[in-house]
């Protein structure tokens, strides 16, 4: 028993992980979500804004992290749209632009009465990372002379009177690394006291906690928080609850549960082998 486990071909473990994720996806098991404190904080930050507030949406992630962040990003878009907030989309990652396009597709297909230029606008990707953030806290036009359609900001109703992002009521940042949430906290939230919420990968989430609540109004950490956020939105807006596309993160919690359990099982067995073999003076 011990022997076989000790030199078990690791491809069996690969297989077990594959099944642990694949089977719940195919059986499409969905578990109820209890909205935790953080998810509530983020939800409230957007919910409590007066309708039609200015929200800057910075998508600082790429397709590689879609799995974790796209459901979050879409949930942010739906929540802001249903609240009628003015959404200003931008991206600090080169591959963030197409992620923004996905959110804009969502707006166009699910909120057709929202008008580009009045309710939402997209800015192109700009290189420079944190330097871009610093720049637009002072002078938006210096970085974005035009929107992504090539229209000067002065000819766009929703940007006409915006000098810099200090005119924003909230910054929503979806982040997969640097530049990302940390930079938004350092160069926008802290120096100018701009309210900021972040949806970030599990890798970053724990490092964001010290910023809460003063520098960050809330953090969504990885897919679980996204699922809770979706649940919070569903509670408040039945229209969204009926939309199967708005339940992505919730669906992905099925695989998470099984895979997490598998992980713990593997750690336990691994350590059991470790201790037993050490007792027998092998390791």
């Amino acid at each position, binding site marked *: 028993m011990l022997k076989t486990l000790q030199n078990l071909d690791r491809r069996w473990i690969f297989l077990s*992980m594959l099944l642990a994720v694949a089977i719940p996806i195919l059986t499409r098991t969905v578990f109820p979500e209890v909205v935790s404190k953080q998810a509530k904080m983020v939800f409230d930050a957007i919910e409590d804004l007066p309708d039609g507030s200015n929200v800057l949406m910075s998508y600082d992630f790429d397709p590689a992290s879609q799995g974790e962040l796209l459901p979050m990003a879409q949930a942010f878009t739906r929540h802001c749209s249903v609240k009628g907030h003015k959404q200003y989309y931008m991206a600090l990652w080169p591959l963030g632009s197409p992620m923004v396009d996905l959110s804009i597709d969502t707006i166009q297909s699910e909120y057709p009465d929202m008008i580009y230029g009045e309710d939402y606008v997209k800015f192109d990707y700009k290189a420079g990372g944190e330097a871009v953030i610093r720049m637009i806290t002072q002078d938006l036009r210096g970085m974005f002379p035009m929107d992504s359609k090539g229209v000067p900001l002065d000819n766009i109703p929703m940007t006409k009177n915006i000098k810099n992002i200090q005119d924003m009521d909230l910054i929503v940042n979806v982040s997969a690394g640097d530049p990302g949430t940390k930079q938004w906290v350092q160069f926008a939230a802290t120096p100018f006291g701009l309210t900021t919420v972040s949806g970030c990968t599990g890798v970053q989430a724990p490092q964001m906690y010290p910023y809460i609540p003063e520098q960050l109004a809330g953090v969504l950490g990885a897919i679980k928080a996204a699922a809770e956020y979706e649940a919070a939105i569903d509670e408040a807006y039945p229209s969204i609850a009926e939309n199967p596309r708005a339940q992505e993160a919730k669906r992905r919690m099925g695989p998470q549960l099984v895979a997490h359990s598998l992980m713990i099982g593997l750690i336990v067995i691994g350590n059991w082998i470790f201790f037993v073999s050490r007792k027998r003076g092998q390791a």
Partner: protein
Amino acid sequence: MKRTVPLIIAIVAGFVLLIANFIPFAESWGLTAQEWFNILAVGAMVLGGGNLVKLHLMKVSSKRKGWGYSVVTIACFFGTLFFGLLKIGVHPNPLTPDYAWSGYYLENGSTLWWIYEHMVVPLTSMMFAMLAFYVATAAFRAFRAKNTEATLLLVTAGVVLLGRTYAGVWLFEGWLPESMQWLRFDNLTVWIMDIPNTAGTRAITIGIALGVVATSLRILLGVDRSYLGQD
């Protein structure tokens, strides 16, 4: 010339940014400097592409092991560049249909979009997703409770892993008395994140911040010139 000028550039640029933060008059200098910085960042991208090509061309020319794959890399690189820069399959911007080049380079249906959608996305995301498997094997073969520290780490990890799924609630349903609800893994996780994690991370954050101050200062004072290279 080779070392002094860059040194001066670095020091001046750095201090302009420092001052711009405290003296409103210098604000505009800081903005200009940063605008240049951001434009220069694109230069860095081009440089990155150039280095990639250079590297793989060398591999090919020296017929080093696996040079065939370098050919693939170079082909993909230039292919993407070609279709993207020439906006192949992109229609004009509906606002200005008479300008052939005014369209969005990633317009749905264009060639670059096709490459992005069917090559960049699946390849990069699957590449990254492989980590799920490595994490699993590592859990089985590497993560050992060798000492108090490692044990503490693994136990916390276990609690968080369960606490961030429905299991955290479900395991305790029914039998746990009201007064002990805080023991539920999901509640425990919230506590771990709010207290120990916040404390530990705060200590690390402050430490790193001081480290950055030190390294930045070394550059601004011109004592650290490693970025100038040898000779």
